[in-house]
């Protein structure tokens, strides 16, 4: 699995919209027929998107960020017996990740077993930058992290947070593109808004009575 140590630099941002469109036409000239047709049909929207200012930032050490929300995607090789152990553990948990609730900065996370159970794909959406995020996990839920990740090769343990962060970064592959629908809301802000919404509904109910 290819690993990248840094977010790829965004190339050719100095081009004008017309130059970008021209480049797209050249690139898609030998694309499959479906792609060529899609380029022509989608040209008005594409032109608009290419004219928009950059909406992509980095999450610090590695990974992309959009607004307040970042992405982390790692492929971690399992130790012998590790895949079986983690699978059984996750099945027993049945989606109950109170430990992640306790961290409070996790928007979502998935555990996917790939390459015949030889690797774990872990992908998450989280608030802020890479290093504070890992430090947060190390401070708040070291045991839960150790229970998951002890099944992966070379894991140094969350009580060694600097080494754990290096280890994670070394297995991470930065996304080439990252989209977040509500990029200006952290997990905590969304939870607060949920309460505001509920309180407002109750208020309106009272006025309506």
């Amino acid at each position, binding site marked *: *699995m*290819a690993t990248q140590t840094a977010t790829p630099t*965004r*190339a050719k*941002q100095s*081009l004008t919209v017309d130059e970008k469109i021209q*480049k797209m036409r050249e*690139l898609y000239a*030998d*694309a499959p027929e479906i*792609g060529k047709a*899609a380029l022509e*049909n*989608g040209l008005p*929207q594409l032109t*608009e*998107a290419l004219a*928009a200012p950059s*909406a*992509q930032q980095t999450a610090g050490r590695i990974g*992309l960020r959009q607004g307040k929300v970042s*992405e982390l*995607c790692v492929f971690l090789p399992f130790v012998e*017996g590790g895949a079986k152990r983690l699978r*059984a553990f*996750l099945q*027993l*948990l*049945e*989606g*109950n*990740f*109170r430990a*992640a609730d306790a961290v409070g900065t996790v*928007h*979502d996370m*998935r*555990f*996917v077993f790939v390459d015949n159970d030889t690797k774990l794909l872990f*992908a998450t*959406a989280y608030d802020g930058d890479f290093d504070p995020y890992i430090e947060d996990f190390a401070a708040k839920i*070291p045991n839960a992290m*150790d*229970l998951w990740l*002890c099944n992966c090769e070379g*894991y140094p*343990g969350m009580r060694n947070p600097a080494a754990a962060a290096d280890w994670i970064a070394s297995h991470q*592959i930065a996304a*080439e*593109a*990252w*989209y977040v*629908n*509500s990029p200006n*809301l952290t997990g905590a802000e*969304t939870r607060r*808004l*949920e309460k*505001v919404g509920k309180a*407002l509904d109750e208020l309106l109910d009272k006025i309506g009575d």
Partner: protein
Amino acid sequence: MATQTPSATTPRGDAAVEPKIQTLRELYADAPQLGRDALEKAMPNLKRELAAGTGAQNAGRIGARQGKVSELTGIFPFATPAGANRLRVLLQFLDGNFKLADAVGTVHDMRFVFLDNDTKLLFCTAYDGEWDAYIDDFATKIPDALDLLFCDADGWPGIRNPKIKDWIVGHQIAAQAWYVGNPNLTVAETRRLAKVGKAVEELLDKIA
């Protein structure tokens, strides 16, 4: 491939939790030392998690769901190196501007990751509701964008092709576990709440 079946969401008693704890102890008996220690230290929290009702549902045809939010994870080989290059340049030019995903209105997040020396694309997304409805939505609302993005995946039949769903399922890997921080909010509800929050603040400002 994980398969999930919906089940009761009521909390469980000690009688149901004990055998699970026993299973975990057996599983972690030959784990690395780090894991064995963690199991003992995490036991109080683990008991609470194992006693909770299930938090895992499925997204219909394939994939996991938690509350209102589902996951789709797919690994798609590129047909040619030129195809990988085409998509990379397109994504770099777009520079994070996915207004068409805004238009679909059910996408929480999505990422494009290039794997194995640019021979494969990993696509992961978090979205609202059920798998079939989600794919239908894309096909109806932004077919050209989908074809532009995925035409270089090996075997892509086209979003308008009736075979498209089977093709996606063939490349999707259901997550073994899936967590959502705010599982009860759809994209539309979150957007609405952001407006409500702003309006309430303005109201409070006026009162002050």
